[in-house]
């Protein structure tokens, strides 16, 4: 769009066209109307001359590269630790049949892991869990919820959209639907040495969701009460608006690989700290061979670690400058004079009568 503005402002020739004599008598609105009907409205007619083409390419490139550098810098400043634990947390003998392991509730799912902080991480440090190959965006899954019920609880009876997780033992389920039913239920606790790191699990959901979309007077009811238990249980004494795990989970992800915020560690972690994670590996990703990862990440003004944006800006910017140079060379080597008549079709094509 820069090019339009540039081209427009640059090579514009504001013409009012040839106006009929009568126009001079008209004023204001009627004049505009007249110009409109005679298709004579003043207009700017940008023409892409070589100079403008080159400068537009150049200008966009020049804007893009610094933006890219800044973005890349912001992304690089983020420290991110990704730790896959789904297979490691299965006890050795059971690894051949992970599914049996996860389905067997009698086996304790505790798992303790250690990792080293590579770089200084400034608080707040976001804790994410990352699932893979999990179709939270599946049509059937996405629509299996009821926003009205989430806000107003049992007052709403029409929860057909929540099928097949709408009613249990003849009573409606609150919160209903597959999304809530399959709530993620791994838990993490972090220790530095023997000190447990405080994990703040508040404010992990959008404020608007907490305040307006999940009822403050709506309590879980009849939840995870059926024959099939999906995921986490909810404390029936805490209103939905305070169940931030649920609120985060209910924001269905767009792609099969996704992260969700679990909580925040609100103290700095120093490089070479050894962190102990005690986790409960409850959630079944084995049946669909998904992975589970734990992610610790700081954030910059731009967000998390994502080199793509910066790289893209830099590469596009530099290729634009490259194109600008190519054009410049082509133009210098083989110039086509501006408005050159030899290129008019009737000057190079034999006329056919």
């Amino acid at each position, binding site marked *: 769009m820069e090019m339009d503005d540039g081209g427009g402002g640059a090579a514009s020739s504001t013409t009012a066209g*040839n106006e009929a004599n009568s126009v001079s008598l008209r004023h204001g609105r009627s004049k505009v109307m007249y110009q409109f009907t005679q298709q004579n409205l003043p207009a700017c007619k940008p023409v892409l001359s070589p100079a403008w083409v080159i400068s537009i390419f150049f200008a966009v490139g020049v804007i893009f590269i610094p933006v890219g550098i800044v973005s890349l810098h912001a992304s690089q400043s983020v420290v991110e630790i990704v730790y896959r634990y789904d297979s490691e947390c299965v006890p050795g003998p059971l690894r051949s049949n992970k599914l049996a392991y996860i389905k067997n509730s009698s086996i304790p799912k505790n798992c303790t892991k250690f990792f080293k902080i590579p770089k200084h991480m400034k608080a707040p440090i976001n804790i994410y869990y990352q699932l893979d190959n999990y179709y939270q965006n599946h049509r059937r899954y996405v629509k299996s919820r009821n926003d009205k019920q989430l*806000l107003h609880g049992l007052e709403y009876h029409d929860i057909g959209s929540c099928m097949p997780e709408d009613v249990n033992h003849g009573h409606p389920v609150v919160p209903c639907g597959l999304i809530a039913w399959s709530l993620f239920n791994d838990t993490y606790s972090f220790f530095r040495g023997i000190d447990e790191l405080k994990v703040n699990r508040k404010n992990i959901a959008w404020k608007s969701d907490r305040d307006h979309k999940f009822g403050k007077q709506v309590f879980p009811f009849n939840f995870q009460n059926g024959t099939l238990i999906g995921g986490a249980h909810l404390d029936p004494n805490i209103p939905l608006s305070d169940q931030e795990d649920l609120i985060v989970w209910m924001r269905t992800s767009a792609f099969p690989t996704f992260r969700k915020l679990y909580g925040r560690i609100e103290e700095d972690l120093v490089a070479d700290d050894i962190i102990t994670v005690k986790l409960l590996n409850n959630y079944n990703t084995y049946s669909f061979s998904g992975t589970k990862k734990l992610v610790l990440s700081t*954030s910059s003004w731009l*967000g998390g670690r994502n080199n793509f944006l910066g790289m893209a800006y830099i590469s*596009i910017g530099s290729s634009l400058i490259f*194109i600008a140079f190519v054009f410049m060379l082509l133009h210098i080597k083989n110039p*086509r004079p501006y408005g050159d008549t030899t290129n008019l079709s009737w000057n190079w094509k034999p006329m056919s009568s």
Partner: protein
Amino acid sequence: MAAARPSGRRKQKLKWSKLYTFSCLRPSADDSSPNEHLLGQPGFSRVVFCNEPHLHKIKPHKYSNNYVSTTKYNLITFLPIALFEQFRRVANLYFLLAAILSVTPLRPFNQVSVIAPLVFVVGISMLKEAVEDWHRFLQDNKVNSRKVKVHVGNGLFVQKSWESLLVGDVVKVTKNEYFPSDLLLLSSSFEDGLCYVETMNLDGETNLKAKRSLEATLSLDEDADFFKFNATIRCEDPNPSLYTFVGNFDFEKESYPLSPTQILLRDSKLRNTEYIYGVVIFTGPDTKAVRNSMRSPSKRSRVERKMDYVIYLLFAILTLISLISAIGSSFYTKFDSSKMWYLRLRDDHEDLFNPDDPMFSGFLQFVRSLVLYGYLIPISLYVSIEVVKVLQAMLINKDINMYDETTGKSVEARTSNLNEELGQVEMILSDKTGTLTCNQMEFRKCSIEGISYGGEVTEVDLAASRRMNIDVERYRYSLDGSDSTGRSIEMFDLSTADDGTEKDVLGSHEDPKTVKSRTSNSRKDSITKGFNFRDNRLMDRMWIYRSNVSDMMMFFRVMALCHTGIPVEENGNDKTKYEAESPEEVAFLIAAQEFGFKFCQRTQSTMVVQELDPSSGLEVKREYKLLNLLEFNSSRKRMSVIVSNEDGEIFLLCKGADELADNGRTYQHVTMMHLSNYGEDGLRTMVFAYKKIGAPEYEKWNSEFTTAKANIGPEREELLENASEVIEKDLLLLGAVAVEDKLQKGVPECIDKLAQAGLKIWLLTGDKKETAVNIGFACSLLRHDMKQLHLCSSKESKSNQQMKDVKEEILRQLQSYNQLIINEENRNDAPFALVLDGKALELSLSIDLRKHFFSVAMNCDVVICCRVSPKQKALVTRMVKEHSGKAILAIGDGANDVGMIQEADIGVGISGMEGMQAVMASDFSLPQFRFLERLLIVHGHWCYKRISKMILYFVYKNIAFGLTLFYYNIFTGFSGQDLYDDWYMVMFNVLLTSLPVISLGVLEQDVSSDVCLQFPALYQEGQRNICFSWKRIIGWISNAILTSLSVFIVNICIFSQSSLDKEGNIADIEHIGTITYTCIIWTVNCQIALMTSHFTWISHLLIWGSILCWYIFLYLYSALPPLYSQNVFHLFTDQIGPAPMYWIATLLVVVVSLLPYYVHVVVQRSFFPMDDHIIQEMKCSGTDVTDTPMWLREQEKSKQLTQIGYSARVDAKIRHLKEQLHRKRKSIYLTVTNSPIYKTVVRRDITTLH
């Protein structure tokens, strides 16, 4: 009879039948129709009870009333038919199915978002139909409520509206009124029941036709006579044949056969006759005129037809990706269902994801996908195009440059769906009378005894000499030497030496303006209508001082006596007005009057002329006895009267075609030359001759002639002709006259421009060949160095065998012409013109000859078809259209052009004239032919480019948007989840991207209107259809695919995992949807900005406003309570709006996705520029002002090399003159070099050199 009945008729009632030799005095036995035995048989069952219309109100003789309707719908049929029409469009049908599906559980979106746009689109289209039909209805009403006098009993005639007319009614039609239905002529104001009708609206012929009632009904010539009138007509059933009629008239216990001579047809007009009485035979839809008219077909432009294929292509893409989705979905459902425990697919069997029956689920998914990806099909395209076209049509209507001040009418686009077709026209089929000409004759020139009066120089000569002078002038300045001046003058003198143009050319050399003003002045102050002649040698009685006064007088006498006109007195003016069969005769009578030979009275056998007596200078009334009138016929090509003057001398006065001049007088050669000069100027010429006949000789001849006249039988006409030829021998040539069939304003210039733009022009006229050729010359379609190929059938063909012969003859002609053309293919200076008549045309168009005909016709620079009936006009149009595949524009003004207008790709009606039929049937109506230039070259060009751009953009934006839905679906396991909120998707076509397209479609101009006119070559972009070629279409589709890919992939890479903001929040489906959608809105709107080359404030407002609109919409939508906005709640204000990532990503995506197109455009502009690009550059850099010669030179070069048109003619003339000059110079050089003086001089020079 007249003596016995004192009637209210005019004084100079005449028995015309007595005057006419050939046609009218035919014995009544000749009228008997051979088909009489057919009556009562099927097809000939109609019974009409004259004067008893009440009998026709009940069965079995209940016939339809006289209401004529041209509307497409009525109140009851409107809804079903209009709906049917709407859903004949594939896209609409598709959306109807989508709407039906949207009320089933299969729906991907909510119902409203599918149904609302459809209702909107169809509703608008239907509204447009309704309004258009309403206008037709009003027009019908106007015609149907015209008034006519109808007999209501007791001899009382009352004004009634046309529609209330019933079969059997007796009506009285007065002069210059149209006949309300098909009538049987009972009697007229003339004693012998003759009346004249103008059938221009039916067959386009301009001469009047005489109709004559039966002898039996002649007595019914007063209102009161119809008190007891009673008769029965048995006749044929309604049919469209204009020239046949079979019937019987039972009156007073006798039966009389009826023939077409007694039938007055609807849409023809009563002329030169005070009134007639007639009985209504056919009413309303049964009339021949209405039977001949076709329902106006709904036309679609070729761009739109091609667009259908684009839509089919999109459907193919849609089906393909739906199929992929369906197969993918089946696989996921079958193989992954047990794994994806969180979906619990086995718990309740949702049909869409039934793991037990994946095939069926796949099928359902397929159906669902068809709806889901429906955004590929641009639903609003049709409605947007319709809106744009209506606006375009409005702008065309409002164009002040196409406003005719004299009639107060402007161009009217009657249907708006052909605007862009105007930019693709390759051939124009034009009517003559009323379209090119005004059907008004003017006396322009005459040549008496070898001296031409009224200006000798032709316009073409003038223009040629003027141009040559400019060249000479330029040449002189460029050389700037005394030597060259001398040479240029010499060159100039030579160039004009032997033409009769010398004087005028010299005049123009000195001061071209004076010549110009002389010719134009003479036009302006022509006080008398039909007389445009200025020559001091003849005007104001000056001719009496010329040497050959007696011949002059004879010349004027021929003018005043040899005709069939009658004078019409006029009050308050000493000038008499005349009425005659053809406007030519009127022009002669007026001219004769101007010269002092005023024809003032005609009785049955005498003609009175008020003559100027040159000896006394007084005006004398002289009475001539009209002895015989040998009327015009096509084989003799002349008309004569035999008169005797008061002294008893008998003269034969004759006027006729050019051959008449060939009779050996001394000035014959000069006269012939004058004739050809006149002809070249497009004037219609007529040669005058006379002879004096001795009384005995006359008596002898007259007796022969009378016996021939009395003959009853088929050979009668031949006998009469032979007799005529006997007396028309040894005539003395007097001279020639030239009348101008006045062209409408600006016609030659317009034709010139159109030809330069590469359009071919065919002339189709009902008039005779000579007239058509004249007009061909007048509007520069023909010129003298053109080879005229005449195609005509020499023989009458009745039997099959003869038919075959004629066909073979034509085939032979065609083949020889074809050979001729092939042989001369390379020579540009030998243009061809094909002239053919209706019969030859019809035969040529028969299946076996068609190929030969078109191979000749397409190679001719101009084709003139004369004597073609309306049906044939329509036939030619259809054939040309089918055979050439080119866009045909037909232009005409009368009802006879209706077929052609309807058949052509674009029908244009001339609205200045009286008849409305052509306008009613037309797609565009113009008050003047000359507006065609601007309509095609400016508006056509613009509309074509606009609509093409607009359609391509529509395809682009819908693919770019629709495909992202598909890509996303791949990531959802083909489950059919959509990335965007339903309301985003509704808004996409309705608000966020539709308005800039409309501004593009209405306001875009590649070049301004004057540049369009200056560079006719730009018009060929449309003819070659380069803006909507498959190459372009595929290019745009690829561009769209690239855009969708880059938008989608870049967004995935940025947002799929990393957190959105510095709080570490992660984007969910709604965020990513909104961000992607933002990118798309930006991209498609910036794309249209890139396509626009003409930014008015409106375009800026709409383009940038649309983007702004998206944010406003998003803001408002996300501010709604969560129950309405759902996951979008506070999305913009709290979530993505504050995140810098959102904005930075948008910028990146927009630039990336527009880059391919931009690079393409830049490369094209820089290295492969198109004409409009360069002209834009020239305009922009102002070289058109700074380097005017270059600008003009390019204009000149851009003109399509053409053989027709005024400038082509001037060019040819210049070539001709230059050749002459060259030859002259050579001969002079030779004479000079051969002369002894020169030789001596040269020798001396050589010797001195040595």
